[in-house]
């Protein structure tokens, strides 16, 4: 044990003597460990983010976008050429029994104004089904009514962020605000949902009746909508609901057997799965990069240890002549390799944590440094020291004392 600490001290001393060389040697290990730590932190953050998104939207929510699935990710904004209509959404809630609600939605970015305060936000036009699908209640006041939807009433419901920005400490209920150029009365304030997993503020919105949106915000008559948000009666009925939606919409859009659907149905589970797959691919890539870095680092350690053994042949001879056994020499050089690699590992850990935190601060990504990967990464670095240090250490240990002493 005492010999062990002696060897560690000796190793640290020789590292300090050859600072630049040691730094260059461990660069590979440093980068490898840093990328393992950073990728796992970012990966874990993404997972958590997706899971919270899952929770905030609800496990039973389905989205229907216009357009074939190849372009399916693009959200149809108000006025985009759309294959989906208000009537599609109504038909879905009427004729697909596994759905509990189906909301036609139009949306647009807009400026909202109250008195001297203004705020830029997103306005959604929908029906009461919107609140059912999202299982969302007001915290203050109430929702608009079916009659408001029929009459294109100038009323709205606002999110907590909009309320704070426009009305501050005062009550918003009954107050008039302008959405674009339309003045409307605030009927209620939605319960706060906070940030979504994707870093979006879910409370930064205004909801108006669909007909109001059409006639007074976007000024585009017709029946087209941006997308449909629907909810299954039960999470277990998701795939049946998806089938029902597809069958009904294909029938309504008069698509025959081989035609490609002009809409895309996605459930949150799918969205999460595709995110998960992307995440796994990125993780794999980083792992490959890390493995290569670690391999390069290991070879660097081996190389420098071979140089060190040759440089210190005489020292080895001296130690052997005064009674070191070959296993003492082996241990000394092995420990030196492990210390060298571990220094790289710890530096890589620090760099990895630093990089993760910077990513976390400068982007909307969530990062979570995983203590177990951090420990693992440093252990792997030490292991690399053992594996790649063994060959040079054994070379040192096998030296003949006389030959070593004669070495110049």
């Amino acid at each position, binding site marked *: 044990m005492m*010999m062990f600490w002696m060897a560690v001290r000796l190793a640290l001393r020789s590292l300090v003597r050859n600072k630049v060389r040691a730094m260059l040697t461990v660069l590979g290990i440093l980068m490898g460990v840093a990328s393992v730590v950073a990728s796992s932190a970012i990966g874990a953050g993404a997972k958590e983010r997706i899971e919270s998104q899952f929770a905030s939207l609800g496990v039973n929510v389905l989205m229907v976008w216009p357009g074939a699935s190849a372009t399916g990710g693009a959200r149809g904004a108000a006025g985009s050429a759309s294959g989906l209509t208000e009537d599609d959404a109504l038909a879905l809630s009427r004729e697909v029994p596994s759905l509990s609600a189906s909301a036609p939605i139009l949306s647009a970015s807009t400026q909202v104004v109250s008195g001297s305060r203004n705020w830029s936000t997103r306005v959604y036009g929908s029906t009461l089904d919107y609140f059912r699908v999202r299982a969302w209640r007001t915290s203050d006041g109430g929702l608009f009514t079916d009659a408001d939807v029929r009459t294109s009433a100038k009323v709205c419901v606002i999110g907590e962020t909009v309320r704070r920005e426009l009305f501050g400490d005062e009550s918003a209920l009954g107050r008039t605000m302008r959405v674009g150029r339309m003045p409307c009365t605030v009927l209620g304030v939605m319960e706060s949902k906070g940030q979504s997993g994707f870093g979006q503020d879910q409370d930064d919105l205004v909801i108006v009746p669909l007909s109001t949106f059409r006639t007074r915000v976007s000024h585009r008559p017709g029946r087209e909508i941006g997308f449909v948000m629907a909810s299954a009666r039960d999470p277990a009925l998701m795939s049946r609901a998806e089938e029902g939606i597809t069958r009904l919409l294909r029938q309504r859009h008069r698509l025959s057997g081989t035609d490609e659907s002009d809409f895309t149905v996605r459930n949150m589970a799918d969205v999460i799965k595709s995110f998960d797959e992307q995440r796994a691919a990125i993780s794999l890539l980083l792992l490959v990069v890390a493995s290569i870095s670690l391999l390069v680092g290991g070879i660097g350690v081996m190389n420098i240890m071979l140089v060190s053994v040759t440089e210190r042949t005489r020292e080895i001879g001296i*130690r052997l*002549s005064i*009674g070191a*056994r070959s296993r003492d020499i082996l241990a000394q050089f092995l420990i030196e390799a492990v210390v060298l690699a571990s220094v790289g590992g710890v530096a890589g850990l620090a760099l990895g944590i630093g990089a993760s935190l910077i990513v976390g601060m400068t982007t909307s990504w969530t990062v979570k440094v995983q203590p177990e990967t951090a420990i693992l990464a440093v252990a792997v670095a030490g292991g690399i020291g053992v594996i790649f240090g063994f060959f040079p250490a054994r070379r040192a240990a096998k030296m003949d004392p*006389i030959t070593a*002493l004669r070495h110049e």
Partner: protein
Amino acid sequence: MSEAGEPRPVIEIEKLEKIYSQGEIVHRALRGVSLTINSGEFVGIIGPSGSGKSTLMNAIGCLDTPTRGSYRLAGHDVSGLDADARALVRNRFLGFVFQGFNLLARTSALENVELPLVYRGISQRERHLRAARALALVGLIDRLHNTPAQLSGGQQQRVAIARALVTDPQVLLADEPTGNLDSKTTEDILSLMQLLNRERGLTIVMVTHDPEVARCASRLITVRDGLIERDERVANPRQAVRPVQTEGHAP
């Protein structure tokens, strides 16, 4: 230190042979050397270059295994030992001094002298104590923390002697200990060795090719072509000249 009382055999060598073979070429560096050295002796080994002095010294020092013959060190048969056992013997029974000092660079005198004790598993506290005592014995108590680069050749060789003595060896083995030193420092080191031999009864075997140096020993062995040519007692060993300016080593 060895007891200065009754002389007893420390080194008993019989018909020792060392054959180096490099492919086709076979070189018989030692061709049957028999030799007994008693405790308290100061033996000088002299002979022309290439005669086998170092080879004999390495065999005595358990740095090498002889090809044939027997070797008993302090009563133990050490001729058939493996590398680890020989390392142990070197650590317990022998102290080495080399021509080129062979100190660890950038390492203090104290740490250099401690080194043999490290491989004995002795605690740091005791190592310090014993190393400092050994350095005091060779007159370097005020140089404990100097590195070899900060010491003169003579001082470095004294550190090497302290390192050899720190384990209380049975024998001090010195191969050309003054080979790298000027004549004045040579006298200095020789007088230290004579002092250790006389005052502490330390058994010394010293290889040299310099007759003046060899005459300081009390017994002179001449080696030629791998054989002992002559083995004689020196009636009146030359007393090495103690430098006027001693560095304060023990009287």
